[in-house]
């Protein structure tokens, strides 16, 4: 019962997040100059985050956290835009939560992690690789 509540709550939160990122990505795509992203570092970052998501799916909490930290450091080093800064903040909050939540909440946290991975894919593939609008 508790897990049903938290899963539903997380789902609602992610709907709100989806609206938020959708509007922000749209604005960044069309109304803000996009900083250059080296394609190779972009792919390396993507593989790192996908690996951390795979680890999350297997339920390896600390593997996810380790890969997530490496991703964040890499993101910090290669890119600076509003979009990546906001995504970085959400990922950072997610890492803290992942480190401290009880095991019973890991399934709920996994939803959050999958979602942010999807947001990164949207940002990378649509905004940075999609070319100028």
């Amino acid at each position, binding site marked *: 019962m508790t897990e049903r*509540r938290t899963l539903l709550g997380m789902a*609602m939160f992610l*709907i709100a997040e989806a609206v938020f990122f959708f509007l922000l990505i749209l*604005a960044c795509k069309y*109304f803000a100059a996009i900083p250059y992203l080296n394609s190779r570092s972009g792919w390396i970052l993507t593989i790192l985050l996908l690996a951390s998501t795979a680890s999350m799916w297997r339920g390896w909490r600390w593997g996810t956290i380790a890969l997530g930290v490496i991703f964040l450091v890499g993101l910090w080093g290669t890119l600076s835009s509003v979009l990546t800064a906001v995504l970085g903040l959400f990922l950072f909050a997610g890492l803290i939560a992942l480190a401290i939540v009880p095991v019973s909440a890991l399934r709920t946290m996994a939803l959050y992690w999958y979602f942010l991975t999807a947001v990164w894919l949207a940002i990378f593939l649509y905004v940075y690789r999609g070319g100028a609008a």
Partner: protein
Amino acid sequence: MSGFSAWLCAIDHKRIGILYMLSALLFMLAGGMEAMVLRAQLAAPNLKLIAPETYDQIFTMHGTTMIFLVAMPVLTGFGVYLTPLMIGANEMALPRLGALSFWLQFFGGVLLYISFATGAAPDAGWFSYAPLSEKAFSPGAGLDYWALALLMIAGSSIGSAINLIVTVATERAPGMTMRLVPLFAWMTLVASIMIVFALPALAASLVMLLSDRLLHARFFDPAQGGAPLLWQHYFWIFGHPEVYIVVLPAFGMISEIIPVFSRKPIFGYPFVATSTVAIAFLSYGVWVHHMFAVALGRNVLAVFAAASMLIAVPTGMKIFSWIATMWGGAIRFTTAMLFAIAFLLEFTVGGLSGVAFATVPVDWQLTDTYFVVAHIHYVLVGGTIFALLAGVHYWFPKISGRLLDEKLGRWSFWLIVLGFNAAFFVQHFLGLLGMRRRVYTYPDIPWFGALNLISTLGAGILVFGIVLFLANVAMSVYFGTVAGKDPWNAWTLEWAAASPPLLQNFAETPEVRSRRPLWDLKHPEAPDWGST
């Protein structure tokens, strides 16, 4: 834990609800004083009581306060207090999220008001259009406070909305299907879903504004590829649903109060519930009617004009349902019922002027005039606040255990009705005569002085009525007649709990078989579920 620290650490939904209400009351006093400063400055032509810059700050703070620090939190407070009781639950689904949401809301409000102390309160209006809100045109820190405070409040609203959604979805008493949920809980649920979809648009706008102001981004700067119109679109994608977010729970209150004081079940429950969903959907397709004065092309305007008129249909259905509920009923004219009836009239005036605005040429003529000011106050005061006052009179005995004084209640009712209409009805005429909103003074044109003076006097009477109402509340908490469980002979589950409810709302889980579980309990010979 006891006393102060018990409130500080509270996670019980009833305490969180009361904290929301008290916080809204505190900020309402601030917003009300700001309104009186504005009305004093406008009382006569060519007055110069305050500087124009100060005037801009005051109207910005008044609008922001009343919408984000009063209307939203007080409705959330009622939602958090009443929803579990109405659906037969003992607690919200996510109690600690409830506490987090409240404190985010409260400190967001405090942050907004700290801007006064820095000498630079925000001054770009409650919707802070770019490029006026950009650093180049508003160099002070006021707008940074405004954006940060609203970002906190947006987060808080999303949190409390999620909590209410999960509560209605998972905590309902056995037997209570969605077709049997009380209409206040229904409409709170729909408003909460709207918050989840709408408030992120505000948050995204604020993140972009803050980035422009503090991080040299350029979302709203046309010289560098940005677009000021982007702010208008995003803000109103949030802003129009927001109108319904603060009016749907008020509709819910009316849908509870009118049946009880008419001694009839609500007329057309399925229509009242589903028209709410229709309003929620339509409200996302009408935002451009706030931007008719922007050259967007005739087809765009036509589509949004049609959608805006369409939304009057489900709203009108509700009005007819409430009237049909009263029709032939044994009406009891308590103060709560008086406010509910006044709501029907005042809100209809606001709704009709809204339909007028949906007509594009009318909007072009009246945009940014006092007609807009009159319209928004008839919707938000005549609608939300009147329903809220009905709700306070109705549920105060549940929350405090004591009845409000009916005689004082009637006095405050008539003063509020008189003051409100005197203050705002004449503003329709001022708008038609061409008086612009947000100007700090005006020349001595025929009628301008007289109508503004009536408006200011009306505002004074309104404040007097509100003070009388607050005095009634303050006195009744201590000296009111003890109410007992169910002073109105009502039908929904909150009246089965003690007044005020104990920490555990219900000693045993109530079972529900109809929309009026207490009627069934009181009339075992003719229960609602037996007749269908």
